[in-house]
């Protein structure tokens, strides 16, 4: 069975500092990997995804994540955060059977301070 571990429940960081949100997964089959973001009082939105090809994937708002198969990780990074990045971030993998069913981690709250 697949599982996802987000190692930090909360990450406080000052504005313009770099940040890394960690995600590790376990799976006996090939997976697709996702990061979703949930801004306050909003629904989950896809931030970026890894399906195949280049192991480094980027979002339109400056986040990037690198798929590392040997370490079974998919950490999310941003070189310089903004106040508006304050949100809950969820890492997810597809479940077995390629149905699109997602297995989520517990989430990491990114708190960007001025």
């Amino acid at each position, binding site marked *: 069975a697949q599982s*996802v571990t*987000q190692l930090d429940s909360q990450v406080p960081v000052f504005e313009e500092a770099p940040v890394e949100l960690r995600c590790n997964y376990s799976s006996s089959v090939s997976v*697709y990997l996702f990061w*979703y973001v949930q801004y306050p009082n*909003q*629904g*989950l*939105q*896809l931030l970026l*995804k890894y*399906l195949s090809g280049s192991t480094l994937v980027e979002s339109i708002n400056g986040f990037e994540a690198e798929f590392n198969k040997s370490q079974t990780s998919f950490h999310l990074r941003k070189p310089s955060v903004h106040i508006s990045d304050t949100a809950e971030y*969820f890492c*997810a993998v*597809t*479940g077995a*059977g*390629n*149905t*699109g*069913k*997602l*297995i*989520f*981690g*517990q*989430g990491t709250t990114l708190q960007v301070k001025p």
Partner: protein
Amino acid sequence: GAGVSQTPSNKVTEKGKYVELRCDPISGHTALYWYRQSLGQGPEFLIYFQGTGAADDSGLPNDRFFAVRPEGSVSTLKIQRTERGDSAVYLCASSSKSGGTEAFFGQGTRLTVV
């Protein structure tokens, strides 16, 4: 509509009552998913529909939970004999096909059982 719509946004019910939660997916999306998100946790998969049929209901916690999608569009999650432990945010997502593509989430229904 432009996105996934869930109604009601909030529902308070008494223990033992029956509730129905509605999800209106993005037009044309054949895959529909229900998740449950408890406080401080990531979303947990409940059930997946491809068209009208439930292709995977392995996440339904017990036989008090049931979901339908009779015409392959709107879906209803039904909970019988509600318990306080059922209190959570129930999320619906849809995608144009299963497996690997982006799932679009609604804003959820917050269910409180008192």
